[in-house]
């Protein structure tokens, strides 16, 4: 028995063939050598030959290159491949076969295959057994495949459900925030004061849907108006709740007392009782006497206002003493008075104005604000606020707002 006959006799399918048949096959079958990665044939191709693997490994792949590509089997020495197209009526390959390693094969044409079965009918029976086993394996693979696909589908469905729930939740939250925004805006004055000899303006732009900034105009007795600009610490809903609380307290205290210092001391007492979170509020609250044009204010940890006279000159208000509200039982608070002469302008603002940053993180700053006020002091008060806000937006970009922004302008006639 030569080397090829020996090799053929080790193939299980041919093991029971008589010696003469082995000799014949050894003389007629053509040996092939293939490099790793070689595609022996492709799924769907017409096939007119099958192969017996002598050495090496071959991968049997369905739907190669497609999204659902799958490895349906690996064939090794002693197994045959490509026989399905010889048995199929249409002669098409049912899978792609690729060499997984360096491999050696024996090639058999359709004619040789048919002749062999004709000479050795018992081999057909053995072949059916092998094919049956492969069919079983393929069946199990198909079921596993289906189960895996089903699992992936279920997972995708659950993820979709979760995502949908999140979208609904987010939608609800956004709706609630919109309602909160409306409520917060409704807390602020709906109309500017209409007082002979004065022109008022105001703008507020929260960083989020709701914020901690506020302003207020409170009509008081004897031709006076309470004017407040404040900033509850933090952002978003917690700041908005503290802001609403502070505005309510301020209105109540302002109606009981004409002294801004005592009003803010009263607000502070109430805030300390009601706020356990260590949050605080800065406020500039003042009382404008419309007859004398005097504005007496208390600055509780808040920025000083900008005061500009009719000729565009800046007058620096006295800083005085003024601690934050909501932190200490007896904050130091004093009162300062400025007189708003004819044509002079007072701008009260929150720190979001001067802390707006450009793309290089440079703050807008007090200097730019003063300049902006001085160059627009002859405009109506509302336009002064609009102009400053416009300049801020140009400076830092509308999407780059880092804090709530509030501006209140009083122009003396």
């Amino acid at each position, binding site marked *: 028995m030569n080397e090829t006959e020996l090799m053929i006799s080790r193939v299980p399918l041919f093991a029971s063939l008589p010696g003469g048949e082995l000799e014949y096959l050894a003389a007629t079958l053509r040996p092939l050598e293939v490099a790793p990665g070689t595609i022996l044939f492709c799924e769907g191709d017409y096939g007119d030959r099958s192969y017996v693997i002598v050495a090496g490994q071959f991968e049997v792949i369905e739907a190669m290159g497609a999204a659902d590509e799958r490895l349906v089997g690996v064939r090794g020495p002693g197994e045959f491949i490509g026989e399905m197209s010889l048995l199929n009526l249409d002669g098409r390959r049912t899978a792609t076969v690729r060499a997984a390693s360096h491999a050696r094969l024996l090639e058999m044409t359709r004619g040789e295959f048919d002749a062999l079965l004709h000479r050795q009918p018992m081999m057909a029976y053995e072949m059916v057994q092998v094919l049956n086993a492969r069919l079983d394996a393929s069946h199990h693979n198909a079921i596993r495949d289906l189960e895996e696909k089903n699992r992936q589908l279920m997972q995708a469905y659950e993820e979709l459900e979760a995502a949908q729930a999140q979208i609904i939740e987010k939608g609800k939250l956004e709706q609630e925030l919109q309602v909160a925004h409306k409520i917060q805006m409704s807390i602020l004055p709906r109309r500017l004061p209409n007082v002979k000899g004065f022109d008022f303006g105001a703008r507020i732009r929260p960083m989020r849907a709701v914020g901690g900034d506020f302003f207020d105009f409170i009509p008081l007795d004897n031709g006076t108006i309470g004017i407040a600009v404040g900033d509850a*610490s933090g952002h978003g809903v917690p700041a908005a709740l503290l802001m609403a609380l502070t505005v309510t307290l301020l209105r109540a205290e302002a109606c009981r007392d004409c002294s801004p210092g005592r009003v803010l001391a009263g607000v502070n007492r109430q805030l300390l009782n009601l706020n356990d979170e*260590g949050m*605080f509020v800065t406020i500039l609250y003042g009382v404008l006497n419309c007859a004398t044009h005097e504005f007496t204010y208390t600055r509780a940890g808040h920025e000083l206002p900008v005061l500009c006279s009719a000729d565009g000159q800046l007058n620096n208000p006295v*800083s005085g003493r003024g601690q934050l509200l909501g932190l*200490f039982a007896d904050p130091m608070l004093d009162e300062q008075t400025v007189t708003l002469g004819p044509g002079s302008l007072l701008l009260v603002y929150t720190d979001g104005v001067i*802390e707006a940053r450009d793309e290089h993180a440079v703050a807008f700053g007090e200097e730019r604000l003063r300049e902006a006020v001085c160059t627009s002091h002859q405009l109506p008060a509302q336009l002064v606020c609009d102009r400053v806000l416009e300049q801020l937006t140009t400076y830092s970009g509308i999407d780059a707002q880092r804090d709530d922004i509030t501006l209140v302008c009083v122009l003396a006639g």
Partner: protein
Amino acid sequence: MEIRVSHQQGRVPVTVFHVKGEINTETHEQLQTQAEQVIQTGTRHLVLDLAEVPYVSSYGIRAISQIFTWLRDASPGESAETVSKGMRDGTFKSSHLKLVNPSHRVLAVLTTAGIDMFLEIHSDLEQAVASF
């Protein structure tokens, strides 16, 4: 924000937080947490070195105020009434928390918020440590 902690001996042992970076919305909790930890482990005299702090936001003001309150609460001998009266009269300064080396911009924020009314602000670390 980074916080490097050092310990110095003046008349009393002093913990120094050398803070680097903004104290803002994102970072204030780190400052509070680290301060809370050292107070729990015995620190009663703390200096915040602000030399490398470019900006303190309102959250930073809140954190500094909170640390002041914790240190005050941890130190018997200063009754709330005494502190309140001292604050009202402008005579009170914390004997447990000091600030040092704030930039011009940070100093402006601290004074606007009235922090300088109850905390000493020094321009020299040695001087701040010696002042306890």
